[in-house]
């Protein structure tokens, strides 16, 4: 089944894989935060990403704003959306069963999707600015500029988040909260407010992720499920609670996807990726469940 490949093909696949991996990291950060810290399985994550893409589209069409600027604007906008979601819905079900939370978030998914169709129809949208169709060529290796920009945005976000969680007192408190909620509360930490912050941040990364995806991929209000599957894959393989692990898992999956797509017939790529996810879940699932019960 393996096809013979040349070296340059492999190098190109490697480059594509790294860039793609960073994009995968970007869309997984929010899920990693909510799942790792709050134990919330946010199935509505991908609809928030989709809203990010439409934010970029609206800002471009109405105000002519470059998506890079939109990515910056997305941070406060989506932070606010996340805070509202947390306050109105998540906090109400946080202490009940996880399945109730799942149900609520699934409802959010359906509402956002339906509302997006009402507003933007189901037409496929493509975002075009000066650099979306340009690419650099180095030694026969082509690098698409929008992917490079997306990768850079991803790296910046990873760096910021990692620094925030590791070096600031708020970040440390968030990690403390995920490790021992009661101990955090008796240390004077208002865990409710921190949950708000975490969900806000997670939603903000989803928004930025959506803006970034729009530079590369066509989008419509309904094709977000594939990103949800991908984000889960990254989070599950990377394990919870560490931005760096999310980054590593994202890169790993990007590389696996692009390498297997030059090594195997393309139609089997997704079979391989899903199989990998099943195995990862079986191997890590119990560990994940364990770390989560500790967090709560």
């Amino acid at each position, binding site marked *: 089944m393996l096809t013979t490949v040349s070296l340059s093909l492999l190098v190109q696949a490697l480059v594509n894989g790294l860039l793609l991996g960073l994009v995968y990291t970007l869309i997984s950060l929010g899920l990693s935060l909510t799942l790792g810290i709050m134990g919330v399985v946010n199935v509505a994550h991908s609809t928030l990403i989709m809203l990010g893409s439409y934010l970029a589209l609206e800002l471009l069409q109405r105000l002519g704003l470059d998506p890079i600027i939109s990515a910056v604007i997305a941070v406060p906008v989506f932070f606010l959306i996340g805070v509202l979601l947390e306050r109105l819905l998540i906090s109400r079900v946080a202490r009940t069963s996880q399945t109730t939370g799942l149900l609520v978030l699934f409802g959010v998914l359906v509402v956002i999707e339906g509302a997006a169709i009402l507003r933007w129809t189901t037409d496929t949208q493509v975002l075009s600015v000066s650099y979306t169709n340009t690419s650099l060529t180095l030694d026969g290796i082509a690098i698409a500029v929008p992917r490079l920009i997306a990768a850079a945005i991803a790296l910046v976000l990873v760096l910021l988040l990692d620094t925030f969680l590791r070096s600031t007192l*708020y970040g440390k*408190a968030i*990690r403390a909260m995920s*490790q021992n909620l009661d*101990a955090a*509360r*008796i*240390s*004077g*930490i208002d865990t409710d407010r921190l949950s708000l912050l975490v969900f806000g941040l997670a939603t903000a990364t989803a928004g930025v992720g959506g803006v970034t995806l729009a530079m590369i991929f066509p989008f419509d209000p309904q094709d977000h499920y594939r990103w949800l599957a991908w984000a889960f894959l990254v989070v599950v393989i990377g394990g919870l609670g560490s931005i760096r692990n999310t980054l590593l898992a994202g890169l790993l999956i990007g590389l696996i996807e692009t390498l297997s797509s030059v090594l195997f017939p393309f139609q089997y790529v997704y079979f391989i990726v899903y199989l990998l996810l099943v195995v990862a879940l079986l191997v890590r699932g119990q560990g994940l469940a364990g770390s989560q019960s500790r967090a709560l």
Partner: protein
Amino acid sequence: MMRHAADVPAGSGAPSPNGLASNANAGLSMRGVTAGYYSHDLVLNNVSLNARPGKVTVLLGPNGSGKSTALRVLYGLLRPRSGQILLDGREITTVPPQRRLALGMALLPQGRSVFPELTVQENLEIGGWLLARDRRRLAAALEGVYARYPSLKEWRQKQAGSLSGGQQRLVEIGRMMVADPRVILIDEPSVGLAPVIVDQVYEEIARLKEEQRTILLVDQNVRAAVALADYIYTLEYGRNNLEGERGAFEDRLEALIKSWLRF
């Protein structure tokens, strides 16, 4: 002298005959608290306690008598069904636990409570969460703790989860002391620790006592607790049982234990 709860008029704020009545409002007290976890059980049934300022108050009782629950209620981790919690006469019954620290209270919980994936230094910083807005004071408070417990300084870059049980206990104490609390609730400080560590922990509690902090200690290590105590309460089946000055208990500890063992 030692009194039986039955001698005290029911539902009273338990003004004791030891002159406590004169400053009943000082310190931390619990008045007529009834509490439980599920709808049908009553872990605490009309319990009243008072931890006097600058003193060590010890709460004793057999397993399942409601000692730890009393601490949870006092710190706001469990809301009582009825009754009040007072700090220096102000009602704090519904103040959530995260706001208690700002009132000068602190809780040293039973069992492991370090943040295992944070370093020792980070654990201590969390203890100084209330000082987050004032970096210099936070740094000073940390330095104070490091000076107080030099071994913490040695471990500062280690992950707390990698330390031994006794070392983790010290981290917990250190974390609590960053906030320099006035009223300290301690829950079963010796459970799960090796005997040699247990001794150290009581040494530390003794020092806290010397520093005139108000301490409420719940302990199954009766002798060690009584040795530190100024005043002692015992609970049985979630009700007040005996109370009195240390002197009244000291010689009768074996009898007390036997009464729990019923001999």
